[in-house]
């Protein structure tokens, strides 16, 4: 089965649509959304509705820290994120809020674990930024292959029993075989706010049959997404960074 794995959509409808279209065109049979559906972008309501209809047709949809903060007044974030969060809270209807609040923090299916951030304490929202963070994650879960997001930069970690954790920065769409004798943690790039210097929306396709993972990018209409952020009166930096993927 070909899984399309998406993370950190952040209310960016144009990026979300482009990724869904690209994944479907590539033959994706099932979707996984690793959380942070809302926040930063101007279309959180639409993105939540779309995630909900994906979930209704069998997708795995998880809660990220931004989704969590919608219904959690005690959450503190940096000033820009807080402004976006408050704006998003006002935009979302009761149904959307209820949907986000009810999402699970992680999902385990067979060999696979899906989670928004480091699995050792999912509700602490720790970032997996390097091999040592990845080691903590891999030490805290049993799944052979796990997928997380939260960092907005794609990466792939692996380890063999007793071995050190190896870090890899994906450089091309070449399928990476996730060798079955090793354990893997794939960190997804962001759909709606990439920060690895490539402004195209990031996602991945994983073939459960061949155990091959492809890190992919989809071009989308950045000007429209950024224009909506400006028109909504959200911080301008949130629009500008989309053009550079920073």
């Amino acid at each position: 089965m070909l899984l399309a794995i998406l993370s950190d959509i952040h209310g960016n409808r144009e990026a979300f649509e482009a990724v869904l279209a690209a994944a479907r065109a590539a033959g994706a049979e099932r979707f996984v959304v690793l959380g942070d559906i809302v926040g930063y972008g101007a279309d959180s309501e639409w993105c939540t509705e779309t995630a909900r209809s994906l979930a209704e047709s069998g997708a795995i949809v998880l809660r990220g820290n931004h989704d969590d903060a919608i219904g959690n007044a005690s959450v503190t974030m940096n000033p820009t994120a807080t402004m976006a969060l408050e704006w998003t809270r006002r935009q979302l209807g009761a149904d959307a809020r209820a949907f986000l609040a009810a999402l699970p923090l992680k999902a385990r299916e067979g060999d696979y674990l899906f989670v928004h951030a480091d699995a050792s304490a999912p509700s602490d929202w720790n970032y997996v930024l390097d091999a040592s963070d990845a080691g903590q994650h891999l030490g805290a879960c049993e799944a052979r292959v796990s997928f997380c997001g939260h960092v907005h930069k794609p990466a792939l970690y692996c380890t063999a029993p007793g071995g050190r954790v190896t870090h890899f920065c994906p450089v091309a769409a070449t399928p990476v075989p996730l060798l079955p004798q090793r354990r893997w943690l794939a960190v997804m790039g962001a759909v709606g706010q990439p920060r690895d210097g490539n402004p195209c929306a990031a996602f991945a396709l994983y073939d459960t049959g061949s155990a091959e993972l492809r890190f992919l990018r989809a071009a989308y209409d950045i000007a429209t997404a950024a224009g909506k952020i400006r028109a909504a009166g959200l911080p301008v930096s949130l629009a500008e960074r989309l053009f550079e993927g920073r």
Partner: protein
Amino acid sequence: MVKGRLKPGEVIDGFVIEDIAHNGGMARIWQVSRPDIDCPILMKVPVIGEGDDPAAIVGFEMEQMILPRLTGPHVPRFVANGDFATLPYIVMERLPGTSLYPLLERLPLPPEEVAAIGAKVAVALDSLHRQHVVHLDLKPSNVMFRESGETVLIDYGLARHIHLPDLMDEQFRLPYGTAPYMAPEQVLGTRSDFRSDLFALGVMLYFFATGERPFGDPQRLKGLKRRLWRDPLPPRARNGAIPLALQEIILRCLEVNPAWRYPSAAQLALDLQDLSAVKLTARAEKMKRDAFGTVLRRRFNPVPIETVKPQTAEAQLANAPIVAVAINLSGSTPDLDEAKRRTVARIIENTPDARIACLNVLKINRIALDTSLDEEGRNKHVMRLVELRAWSTGLPTPGGGITFHVLEAVSPADAILAYARENYVDHIVMGARAESAMRSMLGSVSGEVAAHAPCTVTVVRNRTRPEN
């Protein structure tokens, strides 16, 4: 999990175990067969046990990742990977004959033979590098040949695929490779520079041509690091029969700084195929090792080695295309010539390590045997070369140099296409023949080249004013 050693007659995933082909320290290799596979095949099974070198396992995993992604005549065909849960193995095509290893019995080889072998290995490396893989363990025992003559590079246990995770990296503190052949940057831990393989090929050529290894066979890290500052005795000091051009090539491959070596295996192959076209420098004339003072300075003030990251390794290679410029000396116009020169100048600016090959086709008569002398007794061929050189005046100098070639052929398009195929040309630049009765009758050479070329083709044509 399959316990113990395999025995002839056993069947694993449909593969019938026949005979043991090689019993090595890191792996056993079995001759196997499967009814649906029509070529001879081998099964490589790693030796896994307590106290074994963990690098053996990781190397095996690397090969399981890389081999299925390689194609073409220069790699063994991949058949199947076995799961670690039952039995880890790789089944691949079995190549005929032996490796280059037995050649070591009859060194030194004649220089022509050294250059010919080197050119074939360089062509195989070019194919591998274009598939994003650095071999990192090139040595005589890893070079085999097909019956059709192509070189096949085997053993990807230390290789690096630029697009895949490097399981070797960060795993081990010591550099992995084969001591005599390891490039200086590899000794320092870099595993993503394509030019490391050119260094290893340089060591092979030196060994074949002189019978001696340029850096010996050090057994410790300290000895390995010596090649960072101690230059080898020039090959011609060991064997006077080695031509200057071959010494130039070998010493350029053995440069400590990768940036001073050939920028690509394809450019190295070109030089090895035609020693007469090699541009000689001080390397060619060198008869002694560097003086004590120089070596001492280098020891404490090391040669710079720019570290190439996986992300930039491919950009470095892409900066070194082989560009063929087809120049029509009689049928062109000054405007078109100028436009073509500007196009080539821009290519050199954008890809500074390019090699530019200027071509002219000397048309020969289909039936009569041409006398290559014209009425004035001047050699047409030489005249054309002089004119080609004149054409190139004013072009910036590319890193790979400019060469000039007059091709004698009946059909210019066929000659240009054949040159491009045989010389790994990445880009052909040519002018369009002007609108004429000739073109409508014969078709355009550029059109035919563009339709059949194995690479990018730029057809230069001056924009004309539309006529109402």
